[in-house]
């Protein structure tokens, strides 16, 4: 993917299931009932439903990032959780690249949106540039 071009769009998940949220709880070790227990999430915590782990969203956009940038080149990755992700949500990643402030470094902007176009995660990545990736 050339730096400085149009954002690349990657589908992160199409209709997030409770099963996938439970899978993530088991794999990550985060069994907070806000993420795994509909009764607790609604009756005790007052949410409309259980909510997905923020780190599930970040894990998904991390894999989307690695679909367009070789993982070995990624030296930094981070961001902010802006809105809860709920069962049934569909998420899309927008990945934009530009030359970084230092030579041979690419600065990457990451945005994850739900099916309503709302930002659920905004972040960044930093990668070392391949020879064909600088503008």
């Amino acid at each position: 993917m050339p730096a400085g071009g149009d954002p690349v769009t990657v589908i992160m998940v199409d209709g997030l299931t409770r099963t996938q949220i439970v899978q993530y709880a088991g794999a990550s070790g985060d069994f907070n009932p806000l993420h795994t227990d509909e009764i607790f999430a609604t009756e005790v915590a007052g949410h409309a439903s259980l909510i997905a782990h923020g780190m599930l969203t970040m894990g998904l956009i991390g894999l989307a990032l690695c679909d367009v940038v070789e993982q070995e080149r990624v030296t930094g990755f981070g961001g902010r959780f802006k809105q809860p992700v709920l069962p049934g949500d569909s998420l899309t990643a927008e990945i934009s690249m530009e030359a970084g402030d230092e030579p041979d470094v690419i600065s990457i902007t990451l945005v994850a949106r739900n099916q309503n176009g709302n930002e659920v995660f905004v972040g960044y990545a930093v990668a070392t540039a391949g020879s064909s990736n600088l503008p």
Partner: protein
Amino acid sequence: MMAFSRALGREGTFDPAALAPPTFSQAAAHYDPDSHLRPHPGIPWKGSGRTSSGAPAGGEGWLHAEQHFSYVRHPHAGETLTFTVAPGRTWTKSGSGNSVLDFAEEVTEYRDAAGEIVLTSTIVRVRKTGAPQ
């Protein structure tokens, strides 16, 4: 790593040469003997059972607001990493109304068998507190 990849929607076949997914270090919670993210024997858990909550929800209202990783390299299957956790910076901001937002970092360094840092994970947590004094 196979289970983690499956949880992220991939087929997650066993690959002894695979790199760990970028956020895989989150799974270190399994190796934290005091992790508050899972039930422990003999200690009431706040999830539902006979009632909608088995224990007081507790907590101090902290939310996971941001997450940052810096990588020296990406670990691969078969490696053993050790980690140390330390508090990072703290700061406050004005929130909506008269509220105050408290921010606190937690910094975890992951090292390989040679003791070299492989990656650093920084969690930023936020909670809303009362009106500023």
